[in-house]
C-alpha cells in the first residue's frame, strides 16, 4: 500500500482507550506514511505484547486506561497507572523498543513511577497537536537509528 507516492515502512503502535483525539493522531501519522495500529484497551495491548513475534518500530502509550479484566485493579492503580504496567511489560519483552508516553496525566506521583530510559520520552497530549506528533515520532525514530 502506498500513500502520496511513499511506501509505508515504519510501524507505530498506539495504545490508548480514547478514540476522539486518537483518531486525529492516527490520521496524521497515516498521512505521514506510517503504518499505524491502534490498540484501544489494556487487554488487546497485553495480548499484542505477549503474542507479537517482532516489536513495532515505535510504541505510543497512554497511562490512564481502564484495566478491565486483563490487569489487577490494584496493580493498575484503579486505572490511573495501567500504562505504567504496560510499559513494564513492553520493556520486559523488548528492552530497546522506543516508547513515547503520550498522556494527559500531570500528577507527578504517577509520572514518577515510569522508569524513564533513553528510549522512553513523555509528552503531554495538550501540548502535542497531531502534526507535531508526527515530527516527534520521526525524531524519535531517527535517534534510534543513530
Amino acid at each position: 500500500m502506498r500513500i502520496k507516492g511513499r511506501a509505508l515502512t515504519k510501524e507505530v503502535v498506539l495504545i490508548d482507550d480514547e478514540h476522539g483525539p486518537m483518531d486525529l493522531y492516527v490520521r496524521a501519522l497515516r498521512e505521514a506514511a506510517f503504518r499505524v495500529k491502534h490498540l484501544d484497551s489494556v487487554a488487546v495491548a497485553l495480548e499484542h505484547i505477549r503474542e507479537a513475534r517482532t516489536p513495532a518500530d515505535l510504541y505510543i502509550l497512554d497511562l490512564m486506561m481502564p484495566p478491565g479484566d486483563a490487569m489487577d485493579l490494584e496493580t493498575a492503580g484503579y486505572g490511573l497507572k495501567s500504562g505504567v504496567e504496560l510499559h513494564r511489560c513492553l520493556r520486559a519483552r523488548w528492552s530497546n523498543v522506543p516508547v513515547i508516553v503520550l498522556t494527559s496525566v500531570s500528577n507527578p506521583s504517577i509520572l514518577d513511577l515510569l522508569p524513564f530510559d533513553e528510549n522512553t520520552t513523555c509528552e503531554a497530549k495538550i501540548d502535542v497537536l497531531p502534526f507535531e506528533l508526527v515530527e516527534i515520532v520521526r525524531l524519535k525514530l531517527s535517534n534510534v537509528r543513530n
Partner: protein
Amino acid sequence: MSETSFHNILLPVSELSAACQKLQRQCSRYLNPQRQGFDKKQARARWAKFLRLQALLDLAQATRRGGKQQSLRPVHLRDWGRLCGADAIPYLVTLHSQSRRNDVRRGIIEAIADACAAENRTTQTNVPAVGVFKVSPKSAKASRLQSGIGPSPRCLVLIEGLREPLSLQELHSITVKWVATNRRRLKLIEKAAKKRLAPEERRELKSLQRLADAKRQLLMPLPIKQLSEIEAEFRRQGLWQGA
C-alpha cells in the same frame, strides 16, 4: 422545587458526545498545517478545548458505568480537575454531590483546591452540603458554562449557608470567576453613581448584587438559624411580637 435523584442529574452524555464529535471534525480541519490561513495559536486553543470536552465526556461515561467506578477515586477526580480546569468544577460538584463517600468528597475538594485561586476556595467547606433541584428552562439556559455545553437543564445547586439555590453558572461566577464578576459589579456601580446605567445594565447589576450577597453568605454565613431560635424564644415568652 423538588429534589431530584442523583441519577437524574448526570451530564447529558449525548449532548457532550455530539459536541466532541463536532469539535473533532473542526479539529481535523483546523489542525492541518497545510491549510490556508493555518494559525498555530488558534489550532492549539481548539485542541485544548477538544481535549477538555473529551475528558468531561470520559468523566461522564465513567460515572455512568457503575461497578468499578474509577472516576470515584479521589486522585482520579483530582487529575480530571487539573485536566479540565476550573470549568469542570461545577460538573464534578454536580456529578458527585450526593455521594456519601468521604473519599469522593475529598476528591472534589482537592479538585476545587487545585483549580481555584486561594482566595476563591470558599466552596471547599460547603461541597458536602450541595443539593440539586429542578429549575426552569430559563434558569437552565443561564447555567450554560463557558465551554458552551451546559449541564442537565434541570439542575440548580443549593449550598449550605446560602438562602436560595444558585444555577451552576452562578456558582461558577462567585467561586472560580469571582474576581471578574466583582470587577464587573464595581464597574456597573460606578456607572450607576453617574446615572449612566442602561435598562439591561440595571437588571445585570441587580443580579450581580444578588450574587455578591451569595458570595458574602458563603464567606461568612449570617447566624439566621440562631437568630430565628432567639426570636422564637422571645415570642414564646411574650417579650417580642415582631417589628
